[in-house]
C-alpha cells in the first residue's frame, strides 16, 4: 500500500508538472483528491490494514496529500501569473499619443510680480493695505507735504475730476490714510499695491495707468540704515542673492532724506553695458525717511516717531526681470504675451 501511495504521488506530480491550463489542474485535483479521486480510493482500502500499519500508512497518505496540494497551488499561481501577464500585454497602448487637453488659465504678469513682492514683505512682517483709486486732493497731495502750488506737483501732472477729487497719482494716500487710522499711536509696517494714473501719453516707456507698490514703516527709532538693510534684502530676494544695491540721494516731498535705489546690472555684472547705460547700475525704486510734516499730519509726533517709506513700479521690475521692452504689452493683453508669463 505504501508503494501504491508513492506511485500515486509520482504520477500526480508528473501530470501537474506537464499541465498548462488552470482547468486541467482543477481536473487533476478532482482526479486525485476529490471524493471519487485516486487518493481517496487508496485510503478507502486502509480498513484492511493492521492496527500497527494504519498510523504509518496514514502518515504517508497525509504526506502524499500535502505534496499534491502544494504542487497544485504552486502550479496554479504560476499559471495565473502567466495568464495575467499575457492579459496585460494585450492591454498595451500607444503612450506617445497626446493626453486629454486641460484648459489652462493663469495670472497676468503684473499680478504675479505684485504678489511676489507682497509675499516677500509679508515675510518681513508687513501687512497689505489698499485704498481708493479716486482720491481727495488732501490725501493724494496735502497730507504728503505737497501743498497746492508746490513745484513738485508738476512732477506728476494728474487727472482731476473736480477741484478736490482726482485719480490718485501714487499709492501714497494709502500711507496717509493708514497713519490717520492708527491714530499716531501704533507702530506698523505696511505695503500698499494698486493702480495709479498720470497724465502721460502712452508709449514704450509711459502709460497713463500703471501699477505701484509702496511700503511704510513707522516706529520709535527707525533708522536710515534699517531702510538700507530692508531694501537690500528685498533686492536680493527679487533679483538674486548676487545683486548689490546702492543708495543715491534724491528728492521726494514726502521723505527727507530721500533716496533712489540702484541694483548692480545683471546683464554686465556691474561692468557697464547698454542696458545700464554703461553705469553698471539700474534704478529700481525711490524711498527715504518719512518727512516730519507727513508724520505730523498722520498724527505721529516726529520727535518720538520716525519711519521709512519706499515705492516701486511693478511694470519696471517686470521689464527688468523678464526683459519686456514695451510697457504697452502689459495693457494690450495679447494672449501670446500673457501665455509666456502665466507661470511666472
Amino acid at each position, binding site marked *: 500500500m505504501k508503494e501504491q501511495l508513492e506511485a500515486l504521488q509520482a504520477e500526480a506530480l508528473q501530470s501537474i508538472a506537464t499541465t498548462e491550463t488552470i482547468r486541467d489542474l482543477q481536473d487533476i485535483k478532482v482526479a486525485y483528491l476529490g471524493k471519487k479521486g485516486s487518493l481517496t480510493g487508496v485510503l478507502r482500502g486502509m480498513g484492511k490494514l493492521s492496527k500497527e500499519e494504519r498510523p504509518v500508512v496514514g502518515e504517508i497518505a497525509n504526506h502524499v496529500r500535502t505534496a499534491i496540494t502544494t504542487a497544485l497551488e504552486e502550479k496554479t499561481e504560476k499559471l495565473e501569473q502567466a495568464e495575467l501577464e499575457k492579459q496585460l500585454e494585450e492591454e498595451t497602448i500607444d503612450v506617445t*499619443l*497626446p493626453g*486629454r*487637453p*486641460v*484648459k*489652462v*488659465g493663469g495670472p497676468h504678469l503684473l499680478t504675479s510680480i505684485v*504678489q511676489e513682492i*507682497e509675499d516677500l514683505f*509679508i515675510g*518681513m*512682517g508687513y*501687512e*497689505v493695505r489698499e485704498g481708493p483709486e*479716486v482720491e481727495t486732493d488732501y490725501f493724494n497731495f496735502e497730507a504728503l507735504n505737497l501743498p497746492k502750488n508746490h513745484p513738485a506737483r*508738476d512732477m506728476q501732472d494728474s*487727472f*482731476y*475730476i*473736480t477741484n478736490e*477729487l482726482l*485719480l490718485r497719482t501714487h499709492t501714497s494716500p494709502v500711507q496717509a490714510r493708514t497713519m490717520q487710522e492708527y491714530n499716531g499711536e*501704533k*507702530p506698523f*509696517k505696511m505695503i500698499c499695491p494698486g493702480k495709479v494714473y498720470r*497724465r502721460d*501719453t502712452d508709449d514704450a516707456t509711459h502709460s*497713463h*495707468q500703471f501699477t505701484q507698490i509702496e511700503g511704510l514703516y513707522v*516706529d520709535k*527709532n*527707525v*533708522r*536710515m*540704515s*534699517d531702510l*538700507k*538693510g*530692508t531694501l537690500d534684502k528685498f533686492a536680493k530676494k527679487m533679483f538674486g542673492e548676487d545683486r548689490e544695491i*546702492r*543708495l543715491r*540721494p*534724491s*528728492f521726494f516731498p514726502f521723505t*527727507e*532724506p530721500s*533716496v533712489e535705489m540702484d541694483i548692480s546690472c545683471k546683464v554686465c555684472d556691474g561692468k557697464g553695458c547698454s542696458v545700464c*547705460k554703461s553705469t553698471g547700475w539700474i534704478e529700481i525704486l525711490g524711498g527715504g*525717511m518719512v518727512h*516730519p510734516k507727513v508724520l505730523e499730519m498722520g498724527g505721529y509726533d516726529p520727535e518720538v516717531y*520716525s519711519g521709512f517709506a519706499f515705492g516701486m513700479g511693478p511694470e519696471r521690475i517686470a521689464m527688468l526681470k523678464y526683459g519686456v521692452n514695451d510697457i504697452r504689452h502689459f*495693457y*494690450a*493683453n495679447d*494672449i*501670446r504675451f*500673457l*501665455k509666456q508669463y*502665466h507661470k511666472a
Partner: protein
Amino acid sequence: MLVSYNWLKKYVDLGNVTPEELAAKITKSGIEVEGVEYVSEQSTDVVVGYVASCEKHPDADKLNLCQVDVGEEKLQIICGAPNVAQGQKVAVAKPGAVLPGNFKIKKVKLRGIESNGMICSLKELGIEEKYIPTDIADGIFVFPEDATVGEPVDELLNLNDAVLELDVLANRADALSMLGVAYEVAAILDQPVKLPDEAVAVEESESVNNYISVEVEAIDLNPYYGAFVIKDVEIKPSPLWMRNHLMAAGIRPINNVVDITNYVLLEYGQPLHAFDYDKFASEKIVVRRAKNDETITTLDGQERTLTDENLVITNGKEPVALAGVMGGLDTEVTAETTNVLLEAAYFDAITVRKTVKQTGLRSESSTRFEKGVDPNRVKKAGIRACLLLQQYAGGKVVAGAAEFDELERTEKVVEIDTTHINNRLGTEMTTVDIASTLKRLQFDYKQDADQFTVHVPTRRGDITLFEDMLEEVARIYGYDNLPFTLPGGTGQSGGITERQQLKRRVKNFIQGAGLMENLTYSLTNEQDVKRLISPEVANVTTAPVALAMPMSEDHKYLRLSILPELLQVLSYNRARSQVNLGYYEMGSIFISAENELTTQPDEQLRLSGALTGTWSEQAWQQEKKEVDFYVVKGIVEGLFDYLQIPVTFSQTKLANMHPGRCALVEIENKTVGFLGQLHPTLQKELDLKETYVFDLNLEEVFTSYHAVPAYTQIPKYPSIARDIAFILDNDVNGGDVKQVIEEIGAPLVNRVEIFDLYQGDNLEDGKKSIAYSLLYQHPEKTLKDEEVEESYQKIITAVNEKFKAYVRS
C-alpha cells in the same frame, strides 16, 4: 541744467578728475547726471588760418579761390561759403584732417582747380546747429583778430569740452547755476570755490537817480527790484570764450548785451533783463499787478492779454515786461542800442509759475524764478553783469542802483547734534566727521561739544529742518557708508486680510477653470462707458464719472463695467488671428449717484469674463467644443460652489445681450451680476464670433461668503439613487422643475442633478425631455423603500400639477 566741464574749472580745481568720473561722483552725492556729451567729436588737423586772398573761381560763380596761411605753409582752398573774405581768420581743415562724422579731408580738384583743404563752419566742426548764431548758420566761422595762425582750433572753439547733463529736482534750485554746481562739486572734492569778479569801476560823476527811479506796488510779489544804467555800449559779438561757454550750456549767442545777461543768468542762477533805456520812454519803473485785459507785445512778437494774476514791469504808463517771464518788444535791445537799463529783481515763484502756465512761455529765466532764486545773489548778479558790460561792450556804468528793497535775506539756523544724527542714520559718525561735512559744504556753524548751530546759506533755500541737514550730512558722508540693519518687530503680524485672501482664491479658481487674467484701463470712452452695465449697477448710477480735462476721447470716463474693455481685448487678439480666448479681469468700477461729484465714487470690485471660440480642442477620441452658455454658467456655478454660496439664475433680457441667452445671477433674490451671450449685433460690430460673458459684483459675493463652517457629520446611512425623466413643454425651465423637486423632496432628497436633455424624434413637437437624478439620504436612519417610493410619487404629482409634465417611460 547743462554744465560745461571747462567752464566749471573756472570756479573749482577739478584736478585730474575726468568728466565721466565727476559725473559719477555728482550722481552718487545727490544730483543725477543723466549723461556726459562732448561739444564735438574729436577732429584732427584743424587750425586757424589767415585768408591772405580771396577771388572768384574763374569757372564757378558760387565758389571762391582762397590763399590761406596756416603757419608753416600756404594752402590754396576753394570755399563755397558766402561770407568768406580776405583778411579773415578762419578754421582750416588741412589735407589729411578728419572731421566729425569721420569726414576725411583730401586734396581735390574743383572745376579744374586744386583745393588743398577746407574752410569750416561750426556745424562742420560738430557743433549742434541749434546753438550756432543765426548770422553764421550758413557760413564759415570767423575768429577774432587776435587768434594765432596755425593754432589748433579745438581749444579755441571749446570743441573738446564735456557737458554734464544734470537732472535737477525741485528741491535743488541752487544747482541751476554754475556757482551752485561749483559749491556742490567743491563739497564732493573737498576743494574751495573761486568766486567771480564783481569789482566794477563806476562813473562816480553820474548817479543812477538822474536816470531812473523804482516804485513797487505789488510788494508781496516783488520784494526786490534793482535797476542799473550802463551808457554808451557798443553792440557786437561777445568774446569767444563767452560764446563757447554759452553754446556748451545750450544757449545760442546773439550779441554781447544779450549774451552777458544769459551768461550771468547761468553763472549766478539769477535772471536779468536788459531794456533799451532810450526806448523806455520814462524815468520811472513801476512794478504792479496787470490790469484785466491789459495787453503787451512780448519779444516773440505776440500780443498777450493779461489778467490781475500777472505781474508786469511798466514805465509808469504801460507794461514793458512780463515780470520774470519775457520782455516787451518795444524796449528790446537791438543793434542800435547805446544805453542799457538792466533789471535784477526777485519775483514771486507762484506768480511766475501761473504766468508761465497761462502763456506757455517757459524759459531759462522763468524756470529759475519758479524754483526760487538766492536772495543774496540778486544784486550781485546785477553788478557782475555791469562789470562784463563794461569789459566786453565798452559800457560806462552809472554809479549806484535804483532799488526797491524789502527782501528777506537772513540765513536759516538749524540745530543738529551728533547723537541725534547717528540715531536717525544708524551710523557711528564722530563730531569731527560732522564738522568736516559742514566745512566741505561751506556752511557756517557754531559748535558746542557735539551740538552744532548751522547757519544755512541762502543759496540753499531747501534746508530749513533738522531732517534737511540730516540729508546734507548723510550724502556728503556717503550713503555707501551707511550700515545695513534690519528693523525689529512692531508687535504686529504681517499678512493679508480675509478680503485679500478671498481675492486671491477667486483668481486661483477662475484661472484653474481655464481663464487668463487681463489688465485693462479704468478710463474708457463715451460709448463703452454706457455698455454692458449690470442692472443693479445701472439702478444706482446717475452719470459716469468724467475727467475734468481728459487727454483723449479714448480715456475720458471711469468705467462702469469691465466687459467693454475685455471685449476690445478679444477683438485685438482676433485681429491677430488669436481666436480661441477665455479672459477674465478683477477690478474696480466707479459708481456715483451724483451728477456733479462732491464725494468719492463707490469703487466696486467686480469679476468679469469673456470667452469666445473653441473651448475644448479637437483631439483623438475627443470632439471639438465651442464655448456656449453652459460653459460660462458652469464656471460661475463652480465659483459659487467653491465658495459655498447658494446662487440662482433667472432668465432676463439686457441691452447688448442675446435676448434668449442671458441670465441674472442672484444670491437670495438679490441681483449680483449677469451672464450670457453677447447680442449678435454687438458681436458683429466688434468683429467677434459667438462670445459669452459674465460679470459679478464681488462685494456682494464676499459679503455672502462665510468662512469654513463647523464640522458636520458625514452621512453614515446608505443612500438610494432614483432617476426620473419628465416630458415638459419647451418653455418650461428645467431649473424651475428642479426647484420643485427639491422643495417637495425635502428633507429626504439630499441632492438633485439634471443629467440629460432630449429634444427630437419620439417626442411631440414643442416638447422636451429632461432627466433628473435624485439622491435620497437621511442623516439619522436607513431609509425604507416605501418612504422613498412615497416621496417619489409626491414629486411626480407635484411636477405634473405645476408644469403639466408627465413621466417619460
